[in-house]
């Protein structure tokens, strides 16, 4: 099975500032990939390079086997792209938007377009410029889904949407996967949504790929341990995979990535009164994973006092 997206060693600079560094990723067909990362870590840039709107400084990206810089119109017809911001031509009506978009594609499923439009409570005669944010999102989604693309790339699609619109968005994404070999790559900050629909997640941190695994693997790889002590806890030791630690008067909460039996033994070696692993939600795990490193009391990092 040929991968839908292949990124090899992608490095992208804006000027002399490095935005993406040595990113390698392969996306096979038929999966839903969640693209996670804090703002400014290169997610949108990667998507833009992938679709040929920016040129990579080094490395290459391929979609359906074609180099992103030279995507043929036929390949572009197989990719649905929903950029951030949901841009529409304000003077067109909903119906005109649909007709305009349809004129570019050989295969256009008007039923899907109408269904999504109705689902978001739009009528054909509304002017695109008068739509609310959620309605705009619905219109753009309809235009992106109607050609039934094999690959759907959504850049922060839920930005600014109300919960009902977000739910509709998720439903539409699941609807797309009804047909086999349909791939979705979407970036989002809403971890709960990602948890619901993503097969695998990709986490970017500072322009570097840090995680590429399933949601459950991510959750099970990021674990928090609560160590209770009689008095003041000892300083946090050097642990492999240490993400953050939180120190209070008698307790040390340590979050680790990829904990092994050895690391647990190291923790036990601190002689705590009790040592409890805690289940983290995906959001908590993610925040620890990409957040500030090091030891904290409350939310400010303090140097070690004694």
């Amino acid at each position, binding site marked *: 099975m040929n991968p839908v997206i292949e990124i090899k060693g992608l490095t992208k600079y804006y000027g002399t500032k490095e935005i993406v560094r040595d990113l390698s990723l392969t996306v096979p067909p038929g999966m839903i990939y969640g693209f996670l990362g804090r703002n400014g870590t290169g997610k949108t840039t990667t998507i833009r390079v992938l679709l040929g709107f920016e040129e990579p400084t080094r490395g290459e990206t391929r979609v359906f086997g074609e180099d992103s810089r030279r995507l043929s119109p036929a390949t572009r017809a197989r990719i649905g792209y929903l950029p951030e911001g949901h841009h529409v031509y304000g003077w067109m009506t909903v119906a005109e938007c649909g007709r305009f978009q349809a004129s570019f594609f050989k295969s256009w499923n008007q039923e899907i377009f109408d269904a999504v439009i109705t689902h978001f409570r739009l009528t054909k005669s509304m002017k695109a410029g008068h739509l609310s944010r959620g309605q705009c999102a619905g219109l753009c989604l309809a235009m992106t889904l109607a050609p039934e693309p094999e690959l759907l790339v959504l850049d922060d699609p839920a930005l600014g949407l109300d919960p009902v619109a977000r739910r509709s968005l998720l439903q539409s994404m699941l609807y797309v996967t009804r047909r086999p070999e349909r791939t979705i790559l979407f970036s989002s900050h809403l971890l709960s949504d990602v948890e619901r629909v993503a097969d695998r997640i990709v986490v970017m941190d500072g322009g570097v790929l840090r995680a590429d695994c399933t949601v459950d693997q991510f959750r099970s790889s990021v674990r928090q341990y609560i160590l209770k002590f009689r008095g003041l806890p000892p300083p946090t030791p050097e642990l492999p995979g240490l993400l953050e630690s939180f120190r209070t008067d008698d307790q040390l909460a340590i979050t680790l990535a990829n904990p092994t039996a050895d690391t647990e033994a190291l923790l036990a070696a601190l002689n705590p009164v009790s040592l409890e692993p805690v289940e983290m*939600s995906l959001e908590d795990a993610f925040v620890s994973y990409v957040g500030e490193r090091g030891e904290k009391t409350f939310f400010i990092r303090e140097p070690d006092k004694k």
Partner: protein
Amino acid sequence: MSLAFSILPASDVPIFRQVMQQVQLGVVMGKLQVGEQVPAVRVLAESLVINPNTVARAYQELIRDGVLESRQGRGVFVAERRQDFSGEERGIRPRRSAEQLCHEAILLAASLPEARIAVDAAWKNLRDEVQQSQNLKSKKP
């Protein structure tokens, strides 16, 4: 199907495990009879707005646990109850919930006998409910 599923996305429990728990609860409560077909993967996924693979995984775990069984080409059905939970499991898993119950009781400054009364009452309620639904089902033609 009269079973209402729901999931909490931002909880500590992974989604597939929540689905598993709810299916199991349904079987235990009698809402899902032995031999009854559970909802199709895609149908359940779309109604819960979650990834079908998650539902599929939940079903696979339940099949492995023996709660459900897959019949080729026809779907997934509730299996015969098999008592193959080990004594250890029967000990460990209820204990976690019992700890939570005790925490709550101590917070309210209740005593151990008061806590025990609460446990007895809950047990009785559930038993009655299961009995009721079993009676209902057996009355149907």
